C-alpha cells in the first residue's frame, strides 16, 4: 500500500467518521526511508504544520506524487505546494532553510525504528501496531474496539 493511496482513500473515511466528530485524532509521524526527497517533504510538512496547515499541505503533497526521487519533491516544488496551501512564504522559507524540523523528523524516525517499523504506512493504536490491509472496514473495527475500551 502506498501512503498517498491510504491518505486519500481510507484515511479520508477515518477522518470523516471519527476525526471530524472529535472521537479520534491522527498523529502523523515521519519514517522517511525512500530517499532524500522523503526527508525534505517531511520537513516541509512540519513547516506547514507550524502555520496550522499540516493536513492540507499533506494532501497537496500526496495529490502531486507520481514517482520517488525524481525531483517530484524538489525544494522548488515543496515551495510551490506551500503557495498552493496558502502559507506565509517568508516563514516557510526560513523554516526550510534552517532545517527547523529536521530534529523532529529524526526523532520520529528513531521512535519508529525502536518500535520495529520497517515500512509505511504503519499504524499504532494505544501503542499497538495494528497495521493491516488498506481497507476502511478493517480500521473501523480497530477504532471501535479502542473506543469501546474507554467505555464510550
Amino acid at each position, binding site marked *: 500500500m502506498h*501512503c*498517498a493511496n491510504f*491518505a486519500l482513500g481510507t*484515511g479520508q473515511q*477515518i*477522518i470523516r467518521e*471519527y*476525526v*471530524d466528530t*472529535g*472521537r*479520534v*485524532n*491522527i*498523529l*502523523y*509521524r*515521519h*519514517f*522517511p*526511508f*525512500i*530517499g532524500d*526527497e*522523503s526527508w525534505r*517533504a*517531511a520537513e516541509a*510538512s*512540519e513547516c*506547514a*504544520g*507550524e502555520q*496550522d496547515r*499540516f493536513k492540507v499541505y*499533506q494532501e497537496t*503533497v*500526496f495529490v502531486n*506524487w507520481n514517482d*520517488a526521487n525524481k525531483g*517530484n*519533491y524538489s525544494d522548488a516544488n515543496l515551495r510551490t505546494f506551500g503557495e498552493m496551501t496558502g502559507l506565509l512564504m517568508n516563514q516557510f522559507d526560513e523554516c526550510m532553510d534552517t532545517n527547523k524540523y529536521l530534529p523532529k523528523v529524526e526523532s*520520529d524516525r528513531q*521512535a*519508529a525504528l*525502536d*518500535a*520495529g*517499523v520497517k515500512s*509505511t*504506512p*504503519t*499504524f*499504532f*493504536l494505544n*501503542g*499497538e*501496531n495494528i497495521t493491516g490491509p488498506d481497507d476502511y472496514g478493517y480500521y473501523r473495527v480497530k*477504532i471501535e474496539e479502542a*473506543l469501546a475500551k474507554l467505555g*464510550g
Partner: protein
Amino acid sequence: MGGVTVVATAIAIIAFVALSPEDTTTLEHTDDAVLASSGSLIGDPNAPVTLVEFGDFQ
C-alpha cells in the same frame, strides 16, 4: 570442563539475543503535551483515541 561449559553457555546466550526477533513491536506512549503541541496532529487534541501513523511522503 566447567570453564568450557560457561563459555558455551555465554555464547549460546549471546547468539540467542542476537538472533531473537525484535520484541519491541509496541510504540512508547506519547504524552498529551507532545500531542497538543504537535503541528502534525490532525483533529481535536482532546479526542479520546489517538491513531499514530508513520509515513513517508513518497
